[in-house]
């Protein structure tokens, strides 16, 4: 793999080149909330302040609310219309943890039963990674087997080495994207050496650790330990923010809206943190809060890996940063009782 480089001064030009036939999304601040949003063609000040987005990039593929189709009432009947058009997009600045999260969502939405809304967005979007240079205290990506500066889940990977970015071409499509970009040069031996140095430095900044060894077995063994889970859920207020802002959480709801004759079906984010999520007329399997907290943790670290072979947590730390009562998944995972008797089975 050839490593290329670009001067930070030339970034506007590069993004503008890409913007000629794609919509470019970059980390943007809207009333303090950071998320990937359409670039205005000028401002790249995010390079100064950006650590990670608040709203995870899943929102570009599985939006908080999206229209699935519209329908129209004609007399007694209905006609349905789908708008299938999808623009080409380039997301610049996605962090390695969030790129991994998209790869995890791919497993759900691009399986043998494809989700057309996700797939059309995914197939038309290039991911350009940007390595972290200042991880949060709440970050623990290295415990999920990830690196804050490396990624195999993007098309191109950028790493900050001071005045320049070094660029790794991960996919053929990524390579093509650089082929016509004038400001991109080949990196020197010295550049590659500074890349390694920069990486090691950032990696050392991720100090929060979770022991995920045998986590599936540990969670299985303590699944019925309601005392443990009640304690783990004690301060949770079921606000759902940890799931809504989680880059790998994908639960959704489907709902309709109708004016007199026109209507639409939408889907939007939902959360296993809400008791109504599983509520049925006769009973609710997860009425108690501790069951919902257990579901959230076990889905990420037990059920998802059983089904898809990968832990559905990237260690991005958003759930820790956003929790209003300082609930901390790393504390919960770190204290799973290993040799408790199995109750409530």
């Amino acid at each position, binding site marked *: 793999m050839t490593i290329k480089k670009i001067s930070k001064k030339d970034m506007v030009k590069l993004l503008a080149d890409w913007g000629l036939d794609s919509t470019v999304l970059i980390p943007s601040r809207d009333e303090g909330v950071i998320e990937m949003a359409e670039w205005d063609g000028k401002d790249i000040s995010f390079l100064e302040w950006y650590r990670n987005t608040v709203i995870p990039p899943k929102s570009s593929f599985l939006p908080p609310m999206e229209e699935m189709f519209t329908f129209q009432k004609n007399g007694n009947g209905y006609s349905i219309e789908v708008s299938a058009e999808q623009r080409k997009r380039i997301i610049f600045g996605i962090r390695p943890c969030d790129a991994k999260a998209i790869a995890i969502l791919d497993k759900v939405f691009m399986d043998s039963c494809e989700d057309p*809304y996700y797939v059309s967005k995914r197939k038309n979007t290039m991911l350009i990674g940007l390595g972290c240079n200042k991880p949060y205290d709440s970050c623990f990506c290295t415990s999920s087997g990830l690196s804050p500066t490396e990624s195999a889940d993007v098309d191109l990977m950028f790493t900050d080495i001071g005045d320049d970015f070094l660029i790794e071409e991960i996919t053929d499509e990524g390579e093509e994207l650089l082929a016509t970009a004038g400001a991109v040069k080949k990196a020197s031996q010295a550049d590659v050496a500074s890349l390694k140095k920069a990486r090691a430095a950032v990696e050392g900044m991720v100090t929060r650790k979770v022991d995920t060894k045998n986590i599936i077995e540990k969670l299985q063994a303590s699944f019925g330990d309601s005392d443990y889970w009640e304690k783990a859920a004690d301060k949770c207020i079921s606000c759902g923010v940890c799931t809504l802002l989680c880059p790998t959480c994908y639960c959704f709801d489907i709902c*309709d809206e109708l004016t007199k004759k026109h209507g639409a079906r939408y889907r939007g984010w939902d959360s296993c943190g809400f008791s109504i999520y599983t509520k049925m007329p006769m009973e609710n399997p997860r009425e108690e809060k501790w069951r919902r907290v257990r579901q959230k943790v076990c889905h990420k670290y037990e059920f*998802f890996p059983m089904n898809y072979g990968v832990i559905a947590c990237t260690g991005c730390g958003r759930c820790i940063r956003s929790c209003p009562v300082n609930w901390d998944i790393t504390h919960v995972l770190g204290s799973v009782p290993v040799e408790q008797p199995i109750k409530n089975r």
Partner: protein
Amino acid sequence: MAVTNISPKKKKLDEQNVYLPSIAVIERIIEETPSVRTMHFNFKDEKLRKKFVFESGQFAELSVFGIGEATFCISSSPTRNDHLECTVNRVGLVTNALHRLGVGAEIGFRGPYGNSFPLELMRGKNLVFVGGGIGLAPLRSVIFNVLDNRNKYGKINIIDGARTPADLCFKYDLDSWQQDKSIDVSITVDKGDENWTGMEGFVPAVLEQVAPSASDAIAIVCGPPIMIRFTFPVLEKLGFSPEQIITTLEKRMKCGIGKCGRCNIGNIYVCRDGPVFTYAQMKNFISDEY
């Protein structure tokens, strides 16, 4: 003898947008009880009517446009395919809207989804159907399927119940099955009224009285969770192994295709991996949330 594990359907769904409903037209409505109705419907698209196939035990997402979608088992049998039937208990937003519709109204239909009752494995066996309330709906699909191929199965025993005589669903079917000399039918209510001349008592208790033999038999159970919880131990007492007991699980669902997340029991998704499971499979679930 034992039913091996019932596997999920692996077939790839149609290439088209899986979330797009097909339009179906209500052709007939049967008010089963004050809160339950069965709707007979057909696809508006003639080609789809011919092309559409499903198996007993599968379910669908029905929608009232502008109100939303909800999950229902198909309560008619693939062996009687001039129309489809779903039976709707009026409990929430969508079911109330479905109850407001009349003949000729158009609804949305997505499906069929999920696996089905293992007819191949049931072939040649004695069958015991245990139903309660609206739980007879999925059983009814497979009962018709079996009755329409009567010589392929052994003895058939149907035990069905409801809280009161007014809560019995599919009375017309129960009547015709009672006339059928080739099957044994026991109908019970928790509490009868002045006109009730049949059995009284909970379904599990009646099952214990009827005591169908477990030999070379399969029991298929569907009813409210409380009935299922009390029925399994009775069946085990009668000698049925967990592998000989089949049920279909009800969960809140939205997508029907294993994505939206809410029918999750451990690593199982009821919509994708079920809804039909043996009791043996359920015992192996890594969660107790069913």
